[in-house]
C-alpha cells in the first residue's frame, strides 16, 4: 500500500511552551493510527496541526506527497480532503441532520443538490441514523450527534479522517455506538488517525499506535505488542493507568 500521509518534524509553540517538539510519522492508505498519551501531551494539537486548524511553527505535512504548507496550496481543498471529527461534535446547530451532512458536498465540493443528497443519505445510513434525517442536533443524544458528525466528515469523500477524542465528551453508555461506527469504517478501509483514550479500541482496531508524551513520540508500533510489552518507562507508566489491558 502507498503512503498517504507523511509528517516531518512538526513543532508548535503556544506562547513560550513547546507543545510539539518534532513529530514525524508515516501513514499508509487504509491504515488506522491510534494516537495515545495523557492529556496535555500535545496529541490534539498535533491533530490540529495536520489540517492547519492551528498551523505548525515548522515541519512538513505531506498529503499524497504534496507539501500542504507550501505556498500556492489551497488550504480549503486540503482540509476538505482531511475529514475532521471534533470531541464536542460541532454540528451546525441551525441545520437539520440531512442538511448538516449535505453541507460539505453542496457548499464545499459544489455538487448539485441531488448528488449531495444521495451522498448524504448513504453516509447517514452507514452510521445508522436514517430515521433521524429531519431532526436538529439539539434533539439528538451525544452519541447520535457524533455519528452524524462522522457522516458529515465522510460526505466530503476525504482521503483520510482525523478523529479528535471522539468519545471523550460522551457518557460511557454512549461511547459504544460511536466506536462501532468507527470500527466499521476501519474495516471498510478508511484511512484514519484517532486521538483516543479508548485503549480497547486502539488495541483491537488500530493497525498502528503512537504514544506521545511532552510533545515527542516516545514509542510507536503495533498496538497489541506495544500495550503488552512497552519498551519505555513512560509508556509503561501511562499504560498502567488503564486497568483490564491484557
Amino acid at each position: 500500500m502507498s503512503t498517504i500521509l507523511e509528517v516531518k518534524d512538526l513543532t508548535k509553540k503556544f506562547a513560550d511552551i513547546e507543545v510539539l517538539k518534532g513529530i514525524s510519522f508515516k501513514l499508509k492508505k487504509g491504515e488506522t493510527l491510534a494516537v495515545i498519551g495523557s492529556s496535555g501531551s500535545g496529541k490534539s494539537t498535533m491533530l490540529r496541526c495536520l489540517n492547519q486548524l492551528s498551523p505548525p511553527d515548522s515541519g512538513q505535512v505531506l498529503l499524497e506527497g504534496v507539501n500542504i504548507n507550501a505556498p500556492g496550496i489551497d488550504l480549503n481543498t486540503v482540509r476538505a480532503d482531511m475529514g475532521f471529527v471534533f470531541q464536542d461534535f460541532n454540528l451546525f446547530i441551525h441545520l437539520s441532520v440531512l442538511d448538516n451532512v449535505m453541507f460539505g458536498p453542496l457548499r464545499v465540493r459544489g455538487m448539485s443538490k441531488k448528488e449531495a443528497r444521495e451522498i448524504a443519505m448513504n453516509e447517514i445510513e452507514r452510521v445508522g441514523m436514517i430515521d433521524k434525517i429531519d431532526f436538529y442536533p439539539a434533539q439528538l443524544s451525544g452519541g447520535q450527534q457524533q455519528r452524524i458528525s462522522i457522516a458529515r466528515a465522510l460526505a466530503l469523500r476525504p482521503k483520510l479522517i482525523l478523529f479528535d477524542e471522539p468519545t471523550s465528551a460522551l457518557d460511557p453508555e454512549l461511547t459504544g455506538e460511536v466506536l462501532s461506527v468507527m470500527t466499521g469504517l476501519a474495516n471498510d478501509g478508511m484511512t484514519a488517525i484517532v486521538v483516543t483514550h479508548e485503549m480497547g479500541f486502539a488495541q483491537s482496531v488500530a493497525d498502528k499506535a503512537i504514544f506521545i508524551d511532552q510533545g515527542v513520540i516516545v514509542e510507536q508500533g503495533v498496538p497489541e505488542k506495544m500495550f503488552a510489552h512497552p519498551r519505555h518507562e513512560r509508556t509503561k507508566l501511562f499504560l498502567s493507568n488503564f486497568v483490564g489491558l491484557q
Partner: protein
Amino acid sequence: MEIIRILISELPQFAKGTLVALEVLAGLLFLGLVLGLAIALAEIFGNTVVKFFATTVRKFLWAIPQLVLLFLVFYLPFDLNPVLAAIIALGLCSSAFQSQIFRGAILSVQSGQIEAAKAMGLSKPKIIFYIVIPQMIRLSIGPWTNEFSSELKDTSLAYVVGVVEIMRQAKYIIAYTFGNTAAVYLFVGVLYFILTRIGTYFFYRLEERLWVPGFEKRS
C-alpha cells in the same frame, strides 16, 4: 357620542398619519440596520483603530437623546425635509442599539461552529454567509423585535420637527374640533397599541418559522 362620530370621520387623516409614521419607521430601521451591522462588524473584526472609531461613534450616538439629534439634523446648514431629517436622526440613534444586538448575536455564535466549517474546507466568506449569518439572524430576531416596537413609538418624536405623523394629525383634529383632547389621545393610544401588537406578532411568527431546536426561544 359626538366623539365617536368625529373619530370615525377623521379615520382617513389617522390613516395618512399612520402611513407617514410607517414610512419614517421603515427608513430609520433600515438605516439603523445597515449602520448597526457595520458598527458591530467593525467592533468585532476591525483592527485597533477601526474598533476604537466604531466604539466611539456608538457611544456618542447612544448618549445623545433622540430629540436633540433630531433638532441637530433638522437645523443642519442645508435644507432637509422633516421626514428625511427624522429618518436620519432616529436611524442614527437606532444604529447604536442595533449594533449592540448584532454584536451580541455574532459573539454568541459558538467558536466550534466556525472551526467545524473551517475544518471542512469552507472559505471565510462562505463561513460568514452559511454559518454566522443564519445563526446570527435567529439570535437577533427577539431583541430586534423590541427595538422595532420601541422605534415604532419613537416615530412620534418626529412630531417636533413638523412631520405630519399620527401625533401631528391628532393635534390638527383636536384643534379644529375644539377639544375632545383626552378622547382623541386615548384613541391614538389604541392605534399605537394595535400597530405595536401587529408588528410584534409578525416578528414573532417570523421567529417561529425560523426557529430550530437548540435556539433559545423568547417567552
